[in-house]
């Protein structure tokens, strides 16, 4: 039972409540740094680290933080993790850090992270909070990666910098420019909503059939 519960918290972030495709949160990094798969993954990892770290701390201290100053405390915790991520990336992978530029410090302002602290971590025990954070962060990472991969393949003819189509491929440059982010995201959101719509329809059909069978 308990196992199921934390599994449920993890899995919901990846699909049912995916922070990007379903909740439509964290759009700035989503659109800004997904022009290549590597950038998208670096951003996703940094966000993963910040979200899981902050959720762990917020949940551990949830009974000590007075609710009048909770938002300030959340921001202090998140900002500290972001600074740690910023310097670590700068020291270990300076090239990626240069590409991501101002968007690493801006993880602080990612509404998904503060949203998880306020909605989940500050109300639930550590284990569930960490599972929830890991799920949400993985969902975010997955979303960034799919966008980054699609844009890099179409806009650059490559994936992870490896050429896929050879010389004759004419890159669809707009895909790695900002408008490409909006186009790709729009198409993916369309797919997600169509899928959900179909699923609801299917469930309704099943329910109707069962009612008919019983009656």
């Amino acid at each position, binding site marked *: 039972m308990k196992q199921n519960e934390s599994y449920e918290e993890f899995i919901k972030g990846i699909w049912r409540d995916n922070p990007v495709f379903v909740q439509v949160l964290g759009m700035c990094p989503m659109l800004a740094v997904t022009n290549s798969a590597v950038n998208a993954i670096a951003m996703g990892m940094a966000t993963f680290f910040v979200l899981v770290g902050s959720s762990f701390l917020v949940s551990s201290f949830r009974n000590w933080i*007075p609710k009048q100053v909770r938002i300030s405390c959340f921001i202090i*915790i998140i900002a500290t993790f972001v600074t740690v991520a910023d310097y*670590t990336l*700068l*020291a270990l992978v300076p090239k990626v850090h240069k590409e991501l530029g101002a968007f690493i410090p801006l993880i602080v302002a990612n509404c998904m992270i503060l949203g998880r602290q306020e909605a989940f971590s500050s109300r639930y025990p550590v284990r569930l909070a960490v599972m929830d954070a890991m799920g949400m962060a993985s969902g975010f990472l997955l979303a960034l990666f799919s966008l980054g991969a699609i844009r890099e393949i179409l*806009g*650059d003819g490559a994936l992870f910098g490896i050429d896929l189509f050879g010389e004759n491929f004419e890159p669809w440059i707009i895909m790695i*420019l900002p408008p490409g982010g909006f186009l790709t995201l729009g198409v993916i959101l369309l797919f997600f909503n169509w899928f959900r719509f179909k699923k609801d329809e299917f469930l309704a059909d099943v329910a109707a059939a069962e009612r008919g069978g019983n009656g």
Partner: protein
Amino acid sequence: MTSSAQMNAPAPSSLRLVLTLAIAGLISGIAIIGIYESTLPTITANKARELREAVFKVLPGVSEMQQLVYRDGNLVVTEERRKDEQAVYGGYDRDGDFVGYAIPAAGPGFQDTIGLLYGFAPQQKHVLGMEILESRETPGLGDKIYKDAEFVGSFSALSIEPNIVAVKKGAKARPNEIDAITGATISSKAVVRIINEAHAEWSKRLPPAGSEPPLRGTGPAGSGGSP
């Protein structure tokens, strides 16, 4: 449950609020100082290595380099540089003979400032190489100023007198002309303009060809300037 208990509890005193924030700030400060101190050596080393690699790239055949700071009308061999002072890098070959200067320059590009480093041989008045250090030019078009090997390669043995001219691709006829990149004319011209402007600025400052500061330690006695 926790939230409803908090709702009903009396409001905590201001002191407690202040203390909570102060402690959170303190811990956060210590963590940030810790990560800053522990990554600083790596970051400084990375930057120095990047600069070294760039200098060696724009000055082929160079195996030693030293920083030359422009101070009071002279080039001074020194490691230290004040914020308002400008510097070039002197490149020397295996025998300690002077090869050329690596000169950093920056200027507006198509989208943002382009920062670059170019190698300059004062004897022949030639550009020996060019390396873009910083740029936010349009991916796929403007970024060819550093991704297009042909364009980057055209900055070798390029005459800089009276100045460099970017011409339409294929129209290069004189030794001071280079082919602009098709589709990235503005970025190509920006690179050329940045080098021309830097050259105009530095040609007034550099000592006459043949009297460059020798490599510290191996230079002839009485070169002065080095402690």
